[in-house]
């Protein structure tokens, strides 16, 4: 995720950065990017060097990596590229807390991750399938007879947030509030909204921490609050940092992904039919759609001087893997903009990779699969409401603002 807070002060380009590699690419924020983010990012392979030093009005300067192999390497070598201190949320330097487990490196990292992995393991996710299908159908029941829906609001948003609230063992009534806070943190274009949202989330999460202390209810909040990584109690700051990160990670990413996918499905009736006609290929279909509609980025900081693809980087430099661009790398995915459900299988970088690979990856795959299956089963034909212009949110999770569908 890229920062959504404005860059303040003058940007200083370090002396070791060659001027010809400095760019203001505009990823996540420029008008050119926001017209069609994935088209913009796939085109970087034609119109941009594979590694550039980029910054924006809302994006602090960092080496931007476009190549699959580079991101693959960076994500799997935390001893060179650390995730410590790379979390994009506003924190008071005098009262600093770590985003956990992201900002803790191996081997310590494993102790924290072990507390939550069992709740989202492949096995745990399989056990959720029936419940997710039920929720998907309940949401469809709400709008199927009216012949239209604003997909983002009536399905894309409530489905993953509902699933996530269930996993956390928090009440579904919190849905609207959660979404509002997440929007304020991830998509606000001003620092005040950022800070205010952060304050409200902080207050709520601290209340929940107190409520769940000593109560083992099988949910994610309880697992974190009562967890003892490596047998030792977490400090209040650690508990908060852990819960906060799991909270924010679960809110916006599947939402954005579903919105992209259903926009594409609405615009491609023949491909919709292909999906309906090939039910056994659903896993490949999901994987390919996750490749072309990757929504996040992954930031690291160099622990040492390092040369990558001939570019000399210095200790302390920030490095951002442009994961959506990496998934369009023509060297790895020939003819990358073609949505092809029969590609030779290559690991996609949608969920980043390495020790910090997305905790919710299995869950996300399952949710996307179920949404496609259930929606197409009940509403096989739909299109974008005529006359509507699709707009995208600026910020660290790339996605359309609204997807109005009619059938």
């Amino acid at each position, binding site marked *: 995720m890229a920062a959504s807070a404005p860059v303040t002060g003058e940007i200083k380009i370090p002396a070791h950065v060659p001027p010809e590699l400095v760019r203001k690419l505009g990823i996540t924020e420029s008008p050119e990017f926001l017209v069609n983010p994935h088209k913009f990012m796939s085109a970087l392979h034609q119109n941009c060097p594979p590694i550039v030093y980029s910054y924006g009005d809302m994006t602090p300067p960092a080496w931007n990596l476009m190549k699959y*192999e580079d991101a*693959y390497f960076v*994500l*799997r070598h935390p001893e060179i590229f650390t995730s410590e201190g790379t979390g994009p949320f506003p924190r008071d330097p005098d009262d600093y807390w770590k985003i956990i487990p992201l900002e803790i490196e191996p081997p310590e*990292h*494993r102790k924290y*991750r072990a507390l939550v*992995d069992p709740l989202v*393991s*492949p*096995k745990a*996710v*399989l056990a959720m399938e029936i419940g997710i299908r039920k929720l998907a159908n309940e949401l469809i029941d709400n709008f199927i007879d009216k012949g239209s829906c604003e997909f983002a609001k009536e399905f894309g948003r409530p489905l993953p947030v509902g699933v996530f609230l269930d996993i956390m063992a928090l009440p579904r009534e919190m849905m609207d509030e959660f979404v509002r806070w997440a929007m304020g943190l991830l998509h606000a274009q001003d620092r005040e909204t950022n800070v205010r949202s952060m304050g409200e989330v902080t207050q709520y999460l601290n209340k929940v921490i107190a409520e769940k202390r000593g109560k083992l209810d099988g949910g994610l909040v309880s697992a974190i609050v009562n967890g003892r990584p490596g047998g030792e109690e977490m400090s209040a700051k650690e508990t908060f940092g852990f819960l906060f990160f799991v909270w924010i990670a679960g809110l916006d990413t599947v939402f954005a992904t579903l919105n992209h996918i259903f926009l594409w499905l609405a615009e491609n009736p023949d491909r919709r039919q292909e999906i309906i006609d090939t039910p056994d290929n659903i*896993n490949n279909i999901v*994987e390919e759609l996750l490749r072309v509609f990757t929504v996040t980025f992954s930031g690291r900081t160099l622990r040492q001087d390092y040369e990558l693809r001939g570019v000399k980087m210095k200790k302390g430099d920030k490095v951002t893997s442009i994961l959506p661009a990496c998934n369009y790398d023509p060297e790895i995915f020939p003819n990358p903009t073609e949505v092809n459900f029969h590609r*030779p*299988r*290559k*690991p996609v970088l949608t*969920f980043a*990779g*390495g*020790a*910090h*690979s*997305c*905790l919710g*990856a*299995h869950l996300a*795959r399952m949710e996307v699969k179920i949404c496609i299956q259930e929606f197409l089963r009940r509403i096989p034909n739909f299109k974008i409401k005529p006359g509507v212009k699709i707009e995208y949110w600026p910020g660290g999770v790339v996605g359309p603002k609204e997807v109005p569908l009619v059938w």
Partner: protein
Amino acid sequence: MALVTYVQHNGARHEVDVPVGDSIMQGAVNNMIDGIVAECGGGLACATCHCYVDEAWADKVGEPSETENEMLEAAASERKKTSRLSCQISVTDELNGIVVYLPETQF
């Protein structure tokens, strides 16, 4: 170093020298061998580095731990008698020459 042979589902064979102490998974990932995804990087959290150990080597490799067992049950491809998560097999001198088969899919 120990020689590890990875056999992909389509039959393609890759012979790789893997440093002793590295895992079979790392040997595949560091050499960009398709068929081992290893999304979590050896954290025993994703079951995407599933492999079938050649029967001749199964005894030397040993049995999976309880957590690994649980992950294997949820792996995407069929679990077989010699199924292991390759991140949990450390390469030793004793394993020089080992052959592992990769499943059709990891998720």
